[in-house]
């Protein structure tokens, strides 16, 4: 394996048995939470007006001052951003970063889907490999935070919202349990696990529509059991004279979703699937987030009426129908914006290609979305949808210091990143790709 960085040896010493080391660790660690003053750059705050020649002060992990004429604290490290642009870090909410390194031919690097249909207690937080090479590669385009989620089954598990810096999951995590992921059995057929396996094995006599009904019934039963469980535990907590109810980790893990404190991500692209998911969520008192949303414009008024946000992962997907206009997916965000639906833009990619996030937003801007909204759709809006709008997503005093300093427009492909701060730490811009580039670019 190629290891050029001097820090690598120290890192390996610190993690003597780290399984991740089998593929190497390519992500240099961020520095300490210092005090920085980024001066002279064009500050795009996202939440407010741009500051053409502004200063952003970072200290103790937070943004402590923003403005055209703010005092630079003594001892602050000065970052000269003259001629550069200053943005909040982008947030990719449709990924599975750290759960799947090489999806084909290296099954042992893929920990993205648990077996069985119902895994509400499977937590991405415990499966994320902080040394995934995808992390270092993605953050240099200015993605500072991601939602990483498990997939598969009917209840896939719990997603984590993490910063893309840190050598352990706890150091990366902003919200270790940010959302439950639930794949409603589809119209036609869907979901994985016992029901489908059984259907496939039994072969001839299983009607797919009936299997789907059975899956839905099982899902409803599980959620009702969890609600009863919560009620029984609460009653016992109040009144110990009641019989002590047994504990159950699966049912317990569903309580935040039933309480409405944890949103539920429903992957759904087709109009019927989106409607079904929203109706199901309301029936079960869940707080839905639609992920995918290819047909979301067709049900925009429904989404608006039910106040359901959408993570649009389909901007760069091919039109799903032969007669669709060529730009039908490019224009999804513009149509949702016009209809007043809350949305974020995501690549929907597990990890290696999330670095194309800005171009997804850029493509939406090329097709009717305003440039300002395009930027919001990968910064402030995803933060708000996942309940961390008060923590990140814009350059505002008090927010987490996830800041990227670039040579130009954040969403342009030719733009390069000059400085990167995550959680108030300066992050080196080296990664697996720069390492290999350095190793071979001048090879005679």
């Amino acid at each position, binding site marked *: 394996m190629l290891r050029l960085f001097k820090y690598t040896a120290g890192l390996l010493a610190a993690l003597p048995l780290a399984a991740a080391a089998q*593929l190497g660790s390519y992500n240099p660690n961020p520095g300490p939470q210092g005090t920085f003053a980024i001066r002279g750059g064009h500050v795009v705050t996202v939440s407010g007006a741009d500051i053409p020649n502004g200063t952003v002060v970072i200290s103790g992990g937070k943004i402590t001052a923003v403005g055209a004429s703010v005092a630079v604290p003594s001892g602050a490290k000065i970052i000269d951003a003259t001629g550069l642009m200053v943005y909040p870090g982008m947030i990719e909410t449709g990924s599975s970063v750290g759960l799947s*390194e*090489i*999806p*084909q*031919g*290296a099954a042992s690097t893929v920990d993205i889907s648990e077996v069985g249909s119902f895994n509400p207690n499977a937590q991405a937080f415990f499966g994320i490999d902080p040394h995934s*090479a*995808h992390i270092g590669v993605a953050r240099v385009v200015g993605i500072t935070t991601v939602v990483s989620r498990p997939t598969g089954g009917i209840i896939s598990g719990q997603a984590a919202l993490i910063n893309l810096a840190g050598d352990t999951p706890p150091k990366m995590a902003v919200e270790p349990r940010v959302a439950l992921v639930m794949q409603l059995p589809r119209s036609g057929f869907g979901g994985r696990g016992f029901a489908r396996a059984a259907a496939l094995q039994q072969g001839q006599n299983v009607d797919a529509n009936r299997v789907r009904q059975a899956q839905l019934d099982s899902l409803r039963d599980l959620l009702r059991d969890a609600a009863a469980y919560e009620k029984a535990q609460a009653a016992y907590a109040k009144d110990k004279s009641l019989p002590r109810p047994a504990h159950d980790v699966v049912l317990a893990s569903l309580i935040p979703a039933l309480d409405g404190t944890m949103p539920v991500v429903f992957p759904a692209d087709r109009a019927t699937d989106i409607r079904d998911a929203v109706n199901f969520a309301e029936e079960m008192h869940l707080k839905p987030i639609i992920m995918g949303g290819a047909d979301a414009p067709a049900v925009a008024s429904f989404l608006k009426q039910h106040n359901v946000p959408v993570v649009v992962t389909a901007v*760069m*997907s*091919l*039109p799903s129908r*032969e*007669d669709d*206009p*060529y*730009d039908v997916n490019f224009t999804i965000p513009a149509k949702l914006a016009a209809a007043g639906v809350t949305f974020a833009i995501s690549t929907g990619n597990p*990890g*290696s*290609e999330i*670095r*194309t996030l*800005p*171009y997804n937003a*850029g*493509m939406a*801007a*090329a*097709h009717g979305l305003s*440039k300002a909204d395009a930027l919001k759709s990968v910064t402030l809006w995803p933060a708000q949808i996942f309940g961390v709008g008060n923590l990140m997503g814009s350059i505002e005093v008090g927010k987490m210091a996830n800041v990227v300093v670039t040579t130009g427009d954040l*969403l*342009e*492909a*030719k*733009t*390069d990143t000059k400085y990167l701060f995550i959680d108030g730490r300066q992050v080196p811009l080296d990664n*697996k*790709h720069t390492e*290999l*580039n350095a190793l*071979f*670019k001048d*090879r*005679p």
Partner: protein
Amino acid sequence: MKSLIALLLPAALAAQQAPPAAARVAPTLIRNATILTVTKGRLENSDLLLENGKIARIGKNLSAPAGAQVIDATGKYVMPGIIDPHSHTMIDAVNEGTLSVTSMVRIRDVLNPTDINIYRQLAGGVTTINVLHGSANTIGGQNAVVKLKWGRDVDEMLFPGAPPGIKFALGENVTQKNSQQVEQATGRPVRYPATRMGQEEVLRDAFTRARDYKATWDDYNARVAKGEKNLVPPERNLELEPLVEVLEGKRFVHAHSYRADEMLMLLEVAKEFGFTVKTLQHGLEGYKIASEIAQAGTGLSTFADEWSYKIEAYDAIPYNTAILMRHGVVATVNSDSDERARRLNIDAAKMMRYGGLTEDEALKTITYNGAVQLGIQDKVGSIEVGKDADVVIWNGDPLSVYSTAQTTFIDGEIFFDVQRDQAMRERMAKERIALEAADRAGRRTSPVVP
């Protein structure tokens, strides 16, 4: 006299003798654009005249010929049509994967000119694609270079005079390491070759047989030339004929490959048999052996930034293109995807970020260099007088994510235009209503048959 002939000719024959479509197209004058010539830099506030299917003039304040359509392109950009050197668009079959050598199969036979992806790619500024056989076997099928003339017959879409090529494939897709469970499930034996060693053997064996085949025919032709009579010609072998063409330098090899070692292996085999590999396709680790590739005179066509989707793609880096170009390799960015083919302009822009290509160099990776790799650089790939009028008007700098193609010309004809597209949507909506009504009305009850 002429009219008499016309009367005598059957209608169909007359139609065949009509001038080619391009000659009937009115000239187009594009005014006051920023022209990205690719080979001769950027021309501000310039005009471009398309006439008789060719780029007729480039300059300032050109006068419009009679009957020309004039397009005001103030604030707009014009660039050559994008060339995608690796495509599987518009085919009814991709792989003939039953054998390890399928040089006898031809993409030409399975082209589908009605594939909607053609139109979608036109809307992304693509005008020429290299349609390749898949990567299921060491020696795959013969390619087809196609101009995306949406709505036309296959014959009119084939790129006139493009040298023929053939697809090779090395590495994981051929050894089937990722799909072996299919074999296990079906109980069929694992197909040979299952290693990169076996791939070398398949190549060596095929070209050895091709040499013998050529010798057999050379002997026969020599005897005929000497005047021998009553000779029975040797059998024709459609598997070996294209390989003989490769040996003779008449057919380009486009070789799917990922790892540096397998690419070197192919270059060695080619050297031994005396031919040049025209391009390495994907060639994700090409940057590790850039000098060797340059020395072999071989080009390379790669992804802008795809990586990590399988083991052999784990060391792929977006700096690949830049490193190769700095070493003198003719390098291109390709799509290999109906989806990515629609936004190769963005992929080209990434090459400025990763490796610092200039604007012209970045544009070359999706235009001129592709033309070189396909042997059609005299006709397309840059905006120069005399070249085919395959150009695209963009509403902004095509290297910006915020820009979109507005009008796509091939041989001087418009095959995509944003305004026309809007009109087409209305037509399609009306047609659907009419068809659905006719469909309902047309279902008359079948007569009762006793």
